[in-house]
């Protein structure tokens, strides 16, 4: 399962973003942010209390089942009046949810969370960033561990000089990608893959922003439409 991993913005930042906006409608999400306890039912309630204490008028609150889903529009309609009465929507979902909601309603949105990464659950209660969808996948040469993402510097030819006891130079809680890759390839008897020189990466496999269309929607002459 992959999840959008978030953390709450510092209180001062949210206060600053809401400065001068007295009436707030709060939106949470029942999926990823509920799991990470950053924007579920409980956090929305706590935010409501905190804002009320600070003298804001909370015109209403809701927790969408899946904020990034296209059905979000219908769910939001149910709260039309309370949303209309607000000056701003304070959104406690990941940035995918924030953008989905912003595109449905003519209202300024303020994200209450920072979206950190798309994480894979690697152990119970633990999420790690293991792919950043780079567009030119090299997992076939690294034993299935991604250095583009898992190495802090995205190095593809082996470790930098900062590896410390198998941990990354930036954080001894994070494994050095290249220690992991080395161990995996050794176990598989394929260290030759690591010895192969990797030429400079193609950073434009899919020039940002990524876009994809179903074949049936592409024009018949094969051009992207």
């Amino acid at each position, binding site marked *: 399962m992959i999840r959008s991993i978030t953390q709450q913005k510092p209180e001062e930042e949210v206060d600053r973003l809401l400065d001068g906006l007295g009436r707030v409608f709060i939106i949470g999400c029942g999926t990823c942010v509920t799991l990470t306890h950053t924007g579920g039912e409980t956090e929305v309630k706590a935010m409501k209390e905190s804002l009320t204490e600070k003298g804001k008028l909370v015109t209403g609150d809701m927790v969408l089942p899946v904020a990034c889903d296209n059905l979000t529009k219908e769910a939001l309609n149910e709260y039309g009046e309370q949303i209309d009465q607000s000056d701003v929507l304070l959104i406690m979902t990941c940035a995918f949810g924030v953008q989905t909601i912003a595109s449905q309603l003519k209202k300024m949105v303020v994200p209450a969370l920072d979206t950190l990464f798309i994480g894979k659950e690697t152990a119970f209660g633990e999420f790690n960033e293991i792919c950043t969808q780079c567009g030119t996948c090299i997992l076939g040469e690294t034993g299935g561990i991604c250095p583009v993402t898992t190495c*802090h*510097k*995205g*190095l*593809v*030819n*082996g*470790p*930098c*000089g*900062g*590896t*410390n*006891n*198998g941990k990354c*130079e*930036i954080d001894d809680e994070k494994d050095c990608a*290249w*220690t992991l*890759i*080395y161990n995996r390839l*050794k176990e598989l008897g394929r*260290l030759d893959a*690591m*010895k192969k*020189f*990797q*030429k*400079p*990466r193609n*950073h434009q496999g899919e020039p940002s922003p990524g876009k994809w269309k179903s074949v049936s929607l592409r024009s018949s002459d094969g051009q992207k439409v």
Partner: protein
Amino acid sequence: MVSAFKKALESGKFVVTSEVAPPKGTNLEKMGQHIELLKDKVDAMNVTDHQSSVMRFPSLGGALMVKEMGGEPILQMTCRDRNRLALEADLLFASSRGINNVLCLTGDSVIFGDHKEAKGVFDLDSSQLLGTIRKLEKGKDLGGNDLDGNVSFCAGAIVTPEANPLEPQLIKFEKKIEAGAEFIQTQAVYDLDNFKEFMDYAKQFPVKILVGIILLTSAPMARFMNKNVAGVNVPLELIDEMDTAPKGRKLDKGIEIAGRMIRRVREERMCDGVHIMAIGKEEVVPDIMDAAGLVG
């Protein structure tokens, strides 16, 4: 054109390199003094590139100054701050000004430095930068386009002989040589028996190796490195030696230790030379060389 440093490497003599660090700002006086002091004593001077991710006067500017003052610069280039276009362009400029020695580094993470929110680039890595240099020498840029005018470099890289784990580091070391490294300056070494073991392995490769020696200035400094610098292990005996040196004589003791180590490396012909890193105390490099019995 073959650089003076490359000639020194090929001459079979015990080669000595040291460092100069560009200033934080435009006051070049101290760097100028260090260059003046060292230019005729060492075979070449590395000019550091935003060392520890701290923004400074550029290494290219420092290398140009070494050149203008009649010294032999080794331009340090990290991949942290420039993408491939900028790195290639700087190499072209260096070449045009007679700066023909380059040390290729990946570079520390920006989070260690004084611009902690900056983007770390790492478009290339150190081995790819070496490969880039070899490609430019063939008259092509990384895009495969022809270059007008020639370049020629003596290119090198680093290795951490006491990295943990060591094997992945050695694979990278071999890739750097394959990509075109002609010389290697090592991370600081303090245990020469360990270093000898590393050299037993490294000798098989067609590359010149300069052992890295960092001047110890105090026992706390040694302990700090042990704790914070990956792959640097100052043995307890050396820390004790620094500890028991009388107050006010710690630096002398550090010079003595560095001199003693270099002398042994040279006498036992362990490797091709030494890279002396005096980190902020460049003015004592001649004293270290004296203590090592090296004539500058």
